[in-house]
């Protein structure tokens, strides 16, 4: 008899659901819904501070056209945060208005089409004078299998992330897909799936990376928030303009997304997650302990997971 629940029964990322999507496909469905919930959360929180969160932004690069004709390509992105009050050191640039300047979206410039990438979020400044969205401050990507190492768009995505940071934009990457190697260099590889790959038992399956390229790409830093099976999402410091930051719990929109649509129905806590062997032995034990706890309380499951009985983690 399957055990299901309308709410996520893990503290944090639901290992059963993530395994399902990585084994069976369908991640874009969750990804897109998550982006929408995340956008709503951030836009509500940041709008009074002079930002707007956009999930259909156009990120543009400039090139001088040989024939001096103006061209512009607009691309759909995930989520960006714009600054509503651009300051003198972060002017809004309108390249398309300049003669002899070719404007290309970065994915266009690196040869991507709209369908190659899932949407992202852009946090933009808002101009205090005309209240129009301005410069992109922070860019948020929810990683998909295709834009991780080994994925079909990994090279293009890699170029895109570099372009974002070269443009001085803070890049936030949310990675809830444990099977593939991380996009962050030097991060330990989690649960290798073949003999050729080196696994690190101390590696964590999930992370949120915040790359702040300011004041320059070579001085900037990447902050990696790692978390494991059945651990709550970390509170992430989201850098904005002028030393401003906002603390974000990316778990809130995750739980909201889990509740809507089909996602909760894809999880059966009675059976092991798909491709269970891709988890480390430590995390396999945690998942089994979580499943036993859920089974113990299957008649009284609520929106808050029950604490794991420590005995289930012994031996």
């Amino acid at each position: 008899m399957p055990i299901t629940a309308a709410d996520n029964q893990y503290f944090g990322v639901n290992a059963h659901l993530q395994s399902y999507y990585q084994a069976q496909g369908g991640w874009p469905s969750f990804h897109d819904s998550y982006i929408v919930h995340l956008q709503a959360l951030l836009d509500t929180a940041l709008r009074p501070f002079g930002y707007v969160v956009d999930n259909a932004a156009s990120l543009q690069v400039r090139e001088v056209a040989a024939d001096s004709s103006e061209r512009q390509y607009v691309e759909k992105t995930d989520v960006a945060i714009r600054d509503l009050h651009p300051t003198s050191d972060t002017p809004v640039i309108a390249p398309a208005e300049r003669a002899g300047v070719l404007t290309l979206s970065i994915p266009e410039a690196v040869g991507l089409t709209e369908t190659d990438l899932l949407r992202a979020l852009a946090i933009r400044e808002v101009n205090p004078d005309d209240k129009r969205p301005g410069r992109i401050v922070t860019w948020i990507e929810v990683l998909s299998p295709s834009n991780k190492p080994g994925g079909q768009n990994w090279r293009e995505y890699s170029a895109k992330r570099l372009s974002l940071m070269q443009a001085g934009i803070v890049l936030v990457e949310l990675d809830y897909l444990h099977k593939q190697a991380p996009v962050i260099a030097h991060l330990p590889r989690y649960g290798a799936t073949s003999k050729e790959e080196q696994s690190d038992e101390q590696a964590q399956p999930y992370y949120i990376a915040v790359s702040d390229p300011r004041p320059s790409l070579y001085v900037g830093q990447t902050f990696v928030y790692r978390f494991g099976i059945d651990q709550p999402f970390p509170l992430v410091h989201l850098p904005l303009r002028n030393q401003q930051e906002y603390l974000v719990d990316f778990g809130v929109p995750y739980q909201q997304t889990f509740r809507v649509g089909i996602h909760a129905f894809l999880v059966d806590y009675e059976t092991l997650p798909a491709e269970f062997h891709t988890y480390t032995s430590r995390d396999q034990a945690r998942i089994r302990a979580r499943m036993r706890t859920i089974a113990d309380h299957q008649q009284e499951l609520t929106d808050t997971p029950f604490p794991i009985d420590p005995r289930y983690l012994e031996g």
Partner: protein
Amino acid sequence: MGVMAQLLDAQTETAFFAQLARLTEQRAPTGVRVLLSSVMGKDGAALQLTVLEAVQHSYGECIRLEWEMTHVFTLNETGTLTWQHKGEIVVGLGNIQRELRCNRLINRVLEHLPNP
């Protein structure tokens, strides 16, 4: 009649809370958010209206943007109305209205909100 006038004019705790709850209908983004929820307290079930204000705090070189809970109004199932703000709790409609008349802070908060 504005929200503040309606609150000062309310004859019962229920009328006061119902007027206050209208603030949750505001749509325009402002520096104030009002959330309505149901809670279970030691006196049983209650309706709770929470006022959050957008604030900025300095932490070293960082300026953290935060939503600070500044006011909590609670109407419990027995009809008791309470107002918590700045660590103080005011109980009862008459006391709350008296406090509202001379409390500039809540006036400032309410001014932030467009009349629903």
